């Protein structure tokens, strides 16, 4: 389904990027913190790929971006109970929640500053993105045969729309640092109360711009 959305967009970019001005592929990584879960925040290692087929020319300042967030586990605990009189009636189980986030976005570039040494500051606005968030919950040492967890967390997997923006500073055109803020999924989580919400990552990344097509 995702491919059906992406294919015409990719075709558009490939068609219009031929024989145009400087084209970039930027790859960056760093650290990401979730701003939407206050109690147990999710941390990630983001891997971001930007494709700017027209560079940052003023008449076609559009680009594509793919972000994948490799999760660190967030820790929490829940209580479990048993009717078995030979066992403790209540125990506390530690749980690990991993939030996998993949986003494909279209954005446009707003140049803010540029100097003669090819240092530049851009504001990248990504009004529409398709994001998949997958939460995996694991309880450690859970004796399923004897204990039942109260108000347990479960896995969820949802794809929906997001919006995001980023500030990008390029050093000598090739090196970059970026601050990227993405909204949570624009979707309903359902009626069951979970301990976590959709992730809204704030990414701080650094990387390199590969210039593959110059004038």
């Amino acid at each position: 389904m995702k491919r059906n959305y992406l294919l015409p967009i990719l075709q558009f970019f490939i068609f219009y990027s031929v024989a145009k001005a400087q084209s970039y592929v930027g790859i960056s990584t760093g650290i990401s913190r979730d701003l939407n879960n206050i109690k147990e925040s999710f941390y990630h290692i983001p891997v971001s790929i930007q494709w700017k087929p027209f560079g940052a020319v003023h008449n076609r300042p559009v680009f594509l971006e793919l972000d994948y967030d490799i999760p660190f586990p967030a820790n929490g605990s829940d209580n479990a109970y048993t009717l078995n009189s030979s066992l403790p009636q209540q125990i506390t189980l530690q749980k690990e929640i991993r939030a996998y986030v993949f986003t494909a976005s279209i954005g446009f570039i707003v140049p803010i500053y540029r100097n003669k040494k090819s240092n530049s500051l851009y504001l990248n606005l990504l009004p529409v993105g398709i994001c998949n968030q997958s939460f995996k919950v694991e309880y450690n040492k859970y004796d399923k045969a004897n204990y039942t967890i109260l108000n347990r967390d479960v896995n969820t997997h949802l794809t929906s729309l997001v919006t995001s923006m980023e500030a990008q500073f390029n050093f000598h055109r090739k090196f970059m640092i970026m601050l990227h803020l993405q909204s949570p999924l624009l979707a309903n989580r359902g009626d069951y109360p979970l301990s976590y919400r959709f992730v809204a990552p704030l990414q701080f990344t650094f990387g390199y711009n590969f210039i593959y097509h110059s004038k």
Partner: protein
Amino acid sequence: MKTRIYSYGCLLIMPIIFLACAKRNFFPDPDNPGLSRLTAYGFDVATMYINGAPYINPFSKLNGNAPPTLSKYISNGSVDTLYLSWTIVLNDSNQMPNINYSFITIAIPVPKTFAQTDLLNWNGKRMDSSSNGIQINFDYTPRPAAGNANLYFVKIIVDSTDSIKNYTLSGLFNGNISNSILVTDGRFDFEFYSNDLNF
């Protein structure tokens, strides 16, 4: 003209019907197929296995999950009995059991002075089969079968901001009736209002 009035009428009524439909508070337990998760949100849901088949209190779009009853039976003896009971249906469309169980009752002996404040003291209390009796009624059979039960009130929450108190009772139970009917992995999450209770 009549057709137009009829069409507009249908358009107006349909959202009302849609909004009036109750939601089914059944959230499956990933570790126990056919059973709900153990929750303490007042979802008015109870599930269990009876001889390995999953059962649940029935749901209707008009009324939601069938509510339980909690009532005290005053006897002539030294103790009274608190009955927690609800209707049940099979929660697996692929199974056709030989016997359709339709009702379950958990009977708990209580002192004559038992009141709603005593109910709150059961929060976190595990009661073993020596003090409880579990009953299951069969369809088309007037006499219920009775056996022993284990019951654990995992969480009892009271919302006392209103003059009418709101109790959420969630817990675990199992039962054994003459070694022929085994109730296992039972869990409930019920909500009661203080003015509906007779104690």
